[in-house]
């Protein structure tokens, strides 16, 4: 069951266009010369760690924060001249809004519906949010996922052309997250333009047609999830830890736990020369993070045996080994040298 956009707007340029956006809070530069265009019907994700400037950026788009410099156009209109019209045409879900505990789901939606000149019926919003059973329940008694779906339903009552979702699944359990993802899928299918922020790479990969990776107020990479992952240079990531075979023997008397500490120590690691690893055909890049070597490769079945033999040739013994498909996390790590959730 999908609710399809009923309005036919004449404007068919980008739904969102930002140029030269900059915003500082005191000393802190939250958004730094940001340019971005989001096309009609696109689901765009701003992905980045906490403090990257995602929320500031989206709140500038939503007309809640004024940029120091730069222009913002939504549906071809700007906040300065068309705020009232824009408020009618966009839908917003903010991070951490707490609706009054003692209102019911239906009352809350009815209240928000009354602010819009046109939009969907309250019943329809309840159905989209899958809150039929909770219609007369007070918000205080809803689960985290239900509250988030209510926030989403409140953002939808005005049948918006452009929808902003700020960290829609933060703090939800895995099941509630998947539930919300299905809801976003439905909205995409209905042809709405969606702009969301998230610090979950899997969420961005799963939901977004295009992703902008943000760090320190800048978009450091922009493209479809597949393009971004391809830019890392390999489809798979091999992670392993090693220690010298002779160190291994002298360690044999110790307990496993202590040996594992020794593997991660600088002495055991410093012995491995990265240069021969990069020579191996099929290896695209190499980096070391907390004692773990990470190598991106194109074809696991041909490259992994070569890595094994190279390590054996250097007198190294594998203590850990695993592989996974490259993800946006690896893109972020590759670009910044940090993990998404280092904070």
């Amino acid at each position, binding site marked *: 069951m999908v609710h399809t956009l009923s309005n036919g707007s004449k404007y068919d340029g980008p739904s969102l266009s930002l140029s030269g956006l900059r915003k500082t809070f005191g000393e802190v530069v939250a958004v730094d010369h940001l340019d971005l265009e989001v096309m009609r019907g696109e689901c765009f994700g701003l992905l980045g760690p906490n403090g990257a400037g995602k929320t500031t950026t989206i709140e500038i788009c*939503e*007309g*809640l924060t004024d940029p120091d410099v730069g222009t913002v156009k939504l549906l071809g209109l700007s906040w300065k001249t068309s705020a*009232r019209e824009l*408020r*009618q045409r966009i839908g*917003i879900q*903010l*991070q*951490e*809004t*707490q*609706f*009054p505990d*003692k*209102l019911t789901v239906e*009352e809350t939606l*009815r*209240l*928000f*519906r*009354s*602010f*819009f*000149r046109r939009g969907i*019926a*309250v019943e329809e919003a309840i159905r989209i949010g899958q809150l039929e059973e909770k219609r007369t329940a007070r918000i205080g008694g809803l689960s985290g996922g239900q509250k988030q779906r209510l926030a989403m339903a*409140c953002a939808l009552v*005005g049948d918006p052309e452009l929808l902003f979702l700020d960290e829609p699944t933060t703090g939800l359990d895995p099941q509630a997250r998947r539930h919300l993802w299905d809801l976003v899928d439905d909205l995409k299918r209905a042809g709405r333009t969606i702009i969301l922020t998230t610090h979950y790479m899997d969420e961005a990969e799963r939901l977004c047609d295009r992703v902008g990776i943000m760090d320190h107020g800048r978009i450091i990479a922009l493209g479809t999830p597949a393009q971004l992952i391809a830019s890392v240079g390999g489809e798979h990531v091999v992670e392993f830890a090693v220690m010298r075979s002779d160190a291994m023997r002298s360690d044999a008397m110790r307990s496993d736990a202590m040996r594992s500490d020794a593997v991660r120590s600088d002495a055991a690691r410093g012995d491995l020369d990265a240069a021969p690893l990069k020579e191996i055909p099929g290896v695209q890049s190499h980096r070391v993070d907390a004692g773990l070597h990470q190598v991106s490769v194109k074809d696991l079945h041909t490259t992994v045996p070569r890595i094994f033999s190279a390590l054996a040739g250097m007198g190294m013994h594998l203590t850990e080994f695993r592989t996974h498909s490259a993800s946006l996390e690896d893109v972020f790590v590759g670009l910044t040298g940090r993990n998404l959730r280092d904070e």
Partner: protein
Amino acid sequence: MSRLDESSLYQLTSTRFRLFLREPEAIFWVFIFPILLAVGLGIAFRNRPADVLPVGATTPQLTQALAADKGLSAAMMDEAAGTHALAIGTIDLFAIQRTDGVVYKYDNTNPDARSARLLAERAVQSAAGRRDAVVTQNEFIHETGARYIDFVVPGLLGMNLMGSAIWGMGFAIVEARQKKLLKRMVASPMPRWQYMASFILSRLVMLVIEVVVFVGFARLAFGVPIRGSFFDLAVICLITSLAFSSLGLLIASRAKTMEAASGLMNLVMLPMWILSGVFFSATRFPAVIQPLVRALPLTAAIDALRSNMLQGIGLNHLLMSVAILLAWVVVPFSVTMKIFRWR
């Protein structure tokens, strides 16, 4: 949906009203507490038959002479016991027979003791044979409108109008700001003035209930008079409530936490509880601070309420109070509009 249902002002106002009714504590403070206070004060200050004052005397003759007066009850005791009884307040006056006459021992700052002194003197002198030079008679009056309960009910009404307006505004707005609900509201197309107006409108609905319940109770239970016109009384209550709502909005216009807000509210209300003549006449304060006392909204409100209820004075003779209250409606509201923090 009916047209009324679609009106955002109606939805906002009915939401406010619902939230208030779902808060049992608020209902207690607004409706029940003033009645309990009036009952307590009514019992404490109820009109009793004129008190019989307990006195002591050292000799049987003196005791008999004192007991002959209907206003006194006399007991015989020796000097040590009498002094002790005076000290602990079981008697108001102690009459000591000396060779050269009678000595009265009493506290001349205590009105009861001074009355006892007059009665005792009369009793002693008439027992000794003094005759009155002039024939006199007494006529007793116990008129409603001159009792303490009559004085205190308009005071409590004013205090209640102040408390419910300031608390009602302050807590609800600051809570909404703290829970980021205000931010969510301004992210929607809701006209901002309607948010303020919804508070005032729901306040006015509550006001009618509040005043009718409290004044009705005071009239039925204690016979407190309403000598002025009901229309004038309604107008005074309305302006009073608007003035305090305006002040409540101002208090809530910046505060980010409930703690800060409740501190501010107490800071604003405390001087008025003391200075504005709720429990005793504001004219008791020294002349130097009278201009300040007069300028307080609660003083003006209570003056107007007392003049209306107890003396039946029309609004046209209360222009000063009305002007002060109107100033308190306009000034805080205009300041609020300039400094209100929506996020």
